[in-house]
């Protein structure tokens, strides 16, 4: 899932962390909100950030807003990009846990066809 997460991040352009940023590819975010609802997406993201904070300690102080964005993360540049990859990977792993690998990959393919070459 880490490699898939990297492809998703590479296919997206996210804004700087401090101004409240998308921690997940925007197309995937839109698709997940549509599927699981705003509240569902926020719950998943909160859990993903919590799991990712074990690898990226700076995420421990991050807050998830009601519209699914991260605030107050003291990261920028390459460090932020890597944090986004980790959070995305954790979210994908969570989805695999809940709905299985095939459905997760279909969800990703539907949201971001360009991030799933050859799938």
């Amino acid at each position: 899932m880490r490699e898939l997460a990297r492809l998703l991040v590479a296919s997206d352009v996210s804004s700087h962390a401090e101004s409240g940023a998308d921690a997940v590819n925007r197309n995937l975010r839109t698709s997940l909100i549509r599927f699981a609802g705003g509240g569902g997406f926020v719950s998943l993201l909160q859990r993903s950030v919590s799991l990712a904070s074990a690898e990226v300690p700076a995420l421990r102080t991050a807050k998830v807003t009601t519209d699914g964005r991260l605030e107050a993360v003291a990261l920028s540049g390459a460090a932020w990009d890597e944090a986004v990859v980790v959070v995305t990977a954790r979210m994908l792993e969570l989805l695999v846990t809940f709905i299985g690998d095939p459905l997760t990959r279909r969800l990703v393919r539907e949201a971001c066809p360009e991030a799933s070459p050859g799938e």
Partner: protein
Amino acid sequence: MSTRRAAPSPAQGIERVPIRKLPTGVAGLDEILGGGLSEYSFNIIAGAPGCGKTTLAHQIVFANAGPESPAIYFTVLGEPAIKMLRYQQQFSFFEHAKLDGAIRFVNLSQIVLDNDLSAVLDIIVKEVEASNARIVVVDSFRTVVRKAQGSTTETELQGFVQRLALHLTSWQATTFLIGEYVEGELRDNPVFTVSDGLFWLYQSIERNSIVRKLQIMKLRGQESVPGLHTFRITGDGLQTFPRTFGLTKESTHVKGKRRISTGLPKLDAMMNGGIPEGDSLLLAGPSGAGKSILGSQFIAEGLRQGEPGIVAIFEEIPSEYIERASKFGFDFVTPQKQGKLKVIYLRPLDLSVDETVYEIVNSVREIGCKRLVIDSLVGFEMALAPGFRADFRESLYRMIGALTRLGVTIVSTVEVEENFTSMGLSNYTVSFLADDIVRLRYVSINGQLRKMLLVVKMRRSQHSIDMCEYQITADGIVLGVPLRGYSGLTTGVPGPWSLSQDTPVLVAEPSAGRRPSAVTTKKKGKGRGNKRIRR
């Protein structure tokens, strides 16, 4: 002969609009609906939590969704969409490939929580228009309405439902609204008035069993099968068992065209050649009298003659039954492998009669069965869920009727309690259902507990009136000679037959052992009736 009125024919020159029927994807449900779901209909699936509404909706969606006919499944407040996918993909009908565009899941929770009904209607309309969905599900619709009820007048609510139904039908969508309604709401809730179809699922728990039933409460434009139909939820989703058992066409079988051998030549002779084909025979007797053995002999004889058979057992597992039959020289293993014999063991404790009949009917059709043994009716009753035992007699009537329509000759065993003052025929007062009755009985003679068989009734044939002794041997049941010279055999404790000279006697015509077709009276005294009884 059908006595139902034929549907009125259309007026001259006016064609009826064809209404395409969509498959439900649920075994048995298309038959209950009278062919399937009407296209573009607006339907409600109602019932208490846990009775299978969401699973039913998913089955319908997966049965119909495709690239040219996509489906949208709106989830609202209730089971989270991720959880729903997690559980529903455990069923065999769940095709992952269909989630590539054929089926879309859209969550309306936030819209419902933050906005009014107009906003909800707008988003549903927008999504349906954008996707050109042909199947639309809102799960649960009740939560949409419940949230709005605090701030909306009844008229506004009615308007919302009306507009929703109108729009979805105009966009050629077949719609399913799911709701945890109770029957008391039927009278006042506008959604039931607007709906074209209303499917109600019930679930009740009695002692240790769950009984699930489905009723088509309303269905515009087509005739459904009325009443409550049993259903079960398995790994394949819902499976319904229509009360018609799939037997809606007129039967072409005529009973009694030929005689079926029981496997016991002397018993065949007592029955004037055997059991009339297509009859239902009740084999009644106490425990240990040999009912199951006789049933096995009946099946074995059929297999010898190339007639496939089915044994439906309730009191032992198939391997035990087959092992026991083998001890009497009946090989049931080979015919099973050849597909000529099925030994059905139906899951006990929460069976329904409809489910049992369905299983048997399917098996009959599968192997072209000609002979069926149901062993035993008492075990069958015990295996039923308590809720079904109350109308067991009526259920038996429907079951026997359904099975004999298939042209199968049925032998049902029933245990009767033995007493020494009378000879009952069954515990259920169902003897009238049987075309033929054979009774097995213990009799105490000369310090021994011997066994006796008699043919009590044959609906369309003459039969012997002898009461014959029989024995259970290593080869099965073997009939002996009639027990002559006794009176009171039916009590089980007979005495010697004696004649007083003053007692008139009915004497049979010379064809001894058969029911007299003409009787004469004869005074006692010298002659046949005055024989000494030899001990």
